[in-house]
C-alpha cells in the first residue's frame, strides 16, 4: 500500500502573479526514499512551484497531498508541521555561530525552561552529523571555517534532526567544487536510505541528473513531463528543457503506473 501512496503529491497546481501564469496545471509527486529533480530554465516555474510546498507562496488552485492526505500549507510553519524542510544553498547558516547553534537556531534546546542547553545541543548535533557520516574536527567550530560540503551537511542536519520527511534542496551543488559535490551526493544517498523524499531544484541539469531517480521538467510554467533518469539520457532531458519535447520513452508520474 505504502508503495503506491506518494509522500508528496502536488496536483493541478496553478499560480499567477498579476496576469502572468507562473505555474499552470502542474502535477508532480515524490515517493519515500526517492530523489526527484525539478529542472527548467530560469523562470520556468520550478521555484514558484516548490515555494508552494515550502509555504512561501500559496497556490491559486490545486491540491497538495502528504501521505495521501490533503493538506493546506499557508506558511513555512505549516510546511514544517508536515515534515517539509527547505535547504537553501548558502543563505540559511549564520557563519559566526557553530554547528549546534545553527542546527538548533530558533528551536534551541533548553534547560530549566529558559536557559540554553549547549551540552545537549552539542551532543545531539554530533549524533545527527554522525548519521550523515560527517566528521567534523570539532562541532564547536564556527561554520564559516567549514567547507561547502560540511556546511551543506550542517544545513541538512538541521532539517533531519527535526524529523523532516521531505527535503527541498535548492541548487544544492551549484556553488561547490567536484569533491564537495561528491560529498553532497553521499549525503543524499544516506538520506534516501533513511526513507526521506528529496526534491532537487536546479536550472542546471548536470547538477542533479546523476543524483535524481526521476526528473520533472518545467517550461514556461507548465510541466513538460516526468522521466526516470535510468530510461533517458541527459540529452533527452535537455531537449525537454529547451524544446519542451518529450523523449519516446517518456514516463508518466510513478503513481499513475501502478
Amino acid at each position: 500500500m505504502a508503495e503506491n501512496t506518494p509522500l508528496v503529491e502536488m496536483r493541478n497546481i496553478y499560480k499567477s502573479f498579476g496576469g502572468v501564469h507562473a505555474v499552470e496545471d502542474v502535477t508532480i509527486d515524490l515517493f519515500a526514499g526517492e530523489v526527484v529533480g525539478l529542472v527548467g530554465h530560469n523562470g520556468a516555474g520550478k521555484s514558484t512551484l516548490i515555494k508552494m510546498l515550502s509555504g512561501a507562496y500559496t497556490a491559486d488552485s490545486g491540491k497538495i497531498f502528504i501521505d495521501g492526505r490533503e493538506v493546506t500549507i499557508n506558511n513555512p510553519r505549516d510546511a514544517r508541521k508536515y515534515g517539509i524542510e527547505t535547504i537553501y544553498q548558502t543563505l540559511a547558516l549564520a557563519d559566526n555561530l557553530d554547528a549546534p547553534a545553527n542546527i538548533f537556531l530558533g528551536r534551541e534546546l533548553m534547560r530549566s525552561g529558559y536557559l540554553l542547553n549547549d551540552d545537549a545541543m552539542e551532543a545531539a548535533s554530533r549524533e545527527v552529523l554522525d548519521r550523515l557520516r560527517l566528521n567534523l574536527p570539532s562541532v564547536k567550530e564556527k561554520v564559516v571555517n567549514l567547507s561547502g560540503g560540511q556546511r551543506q551537511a550542517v544545513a541538512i542536519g538541521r532539517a533531519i534532526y527535526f524529523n523532516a520527511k521531505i527535503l527541498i534542496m535548492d541548487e544544492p551543488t551549484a556553488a561547490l567544487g567536484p569533491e564537495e559535490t561528491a560529498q553532497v551526493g553521499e549525503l543524499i544517498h544516506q538520506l534516501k536510505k533513511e526513507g526521506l523524499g528529496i526534491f532537487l531544484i536546479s536550472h542546471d541539469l548536470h547538477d542533479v541528473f546523476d543524483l535524481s531517480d526521476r526528473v520533472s521538467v518545467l517550461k514556461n510554467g507548465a510541466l513538460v513531463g516526468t522521466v526516470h533518469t535510468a530510461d533517458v539520457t541527459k540529452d533527452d532531458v535537455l531537449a525537454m528543457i529547451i524544446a519542451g519535447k518529450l523523449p519516446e520513452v517518456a514516463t508518466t508520474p510513478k503513481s499513475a503506473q501502478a
Partner: protein
Amino acid sequence: MSKLTTQPMLLGRSLARLDWRQYLTLFIFLGLCVVFHFLTLWKLGRPAFISQVNVINVIRQVSIVGIMAVGMTYVIMVAEIDLGVGSLLAVCGMIAALLQRADAGLLASILLPLLVGVATGLFVGLLVTYGRIPSFVATLGVLASYRGIALLISNRGQPVTGIDPSFRFIGAGVLGDVPGLASIPFIKVIPIPIVIFAVVIAVGAIVFQRYPFGRHVAAVGGNATAARLSGINVRAIKLAVFAISGICAAISALILTSRLNMGSPLSGTTMELDVIAAVVVGGTSLYGGRGSVLGSILGAMLIGVLSNGLNLMAVNPHWQPVVKGVVIATAVLLDQLGRRHEE
C-alpha cells in the same frame, strides 16, 4: 582549494579559536595597569594608581559609560549603531532632576526616566525596522533632537538642582549606607554605582551567553536572512536591542544625575562616542555577529584606566582624546585584519 588560500585559512582558524582580540585587549589593559602603577609610584612616591581609593574611583567613573556599553554591545552585535545614547542620557537625567525638584518622589524619579529610555529605544527600533531608516540616521536624529529637548526643558540651559537627599543614594551612596552592611570592612566602601554596574554586566552577559535571545542576536548579526528563515523574528530582535540600549542610557542617567546632584542639559555630550569606542575596543565587530558583553566592559575599563593614568601623571588633558583616538583606530584595524584572516 589552492595552496595559497589554505595557509591564511589555517592561521585564521587557530586565531579564531584563540579569540586573540580579547586576549590582546586584556594584555594591553594589564600592561597599562602595570606601567601606570610604576610610573605613578616613581613620580609621586606612593602607589597612587593601584590603591583602594583609585581602583574604586576608576570603576565608578567607568560605570556610566560601561553600563551604556552593555546595551550598545547588543545593538552593534546586530550590525546597527545607536548614536543617541548621550543625548538620551541628558533627557533622562533632566527628567529625573525635574521630578525631584517637583517632589514627585523617589519611585517616579527612577521609573519615568527608565520608561523614556525604553520608549525611545522602541521608537528608534520602529524607525529602523518598519521605517527602513538606517540606524545611523535614525539615532543621529535622536542625538540632535534629544539634546534640544534636554535644553528646552531646562531653565535656559541651566542645570536643574533641588534633588532630594534620598535620590543621592543611587550615585553617591556606598554599600555601607545599607542597614546591616555598615560594619563589613571591604563591602561597606563599595559605591552603589559599582553595584548597579555589576548587576547590569551580570544580566547583560548572562542573557548574551545563556539565553536564546542572546543567541538570536548573534544570529541576526551574522546572517539576518538565515535568522529569518530559521523562524527568528528579526524585527522583534532589533526592536529589543534598541530598547536595551535605551534603558541602559537611562540607568546611567540616574547614576550621573544623582552623583552630580543636578540635572545638566549638556551631560553626556559626545558620550556616545566613548560608549562605541569601549565596545569596539572590546572586540565587538561593527559589522555585527561577533563580540561579547565582557569584552565591551574590558574596553570601557581600558579607556577608563588610560584617562585615569594620564590624569594621575598630570599629562596635558588635551592629549587624552588623541591617545583615545589612536587606541580606537588600532582596535578597528586589528578587527579588520582578523576579519581578513577568517575569510
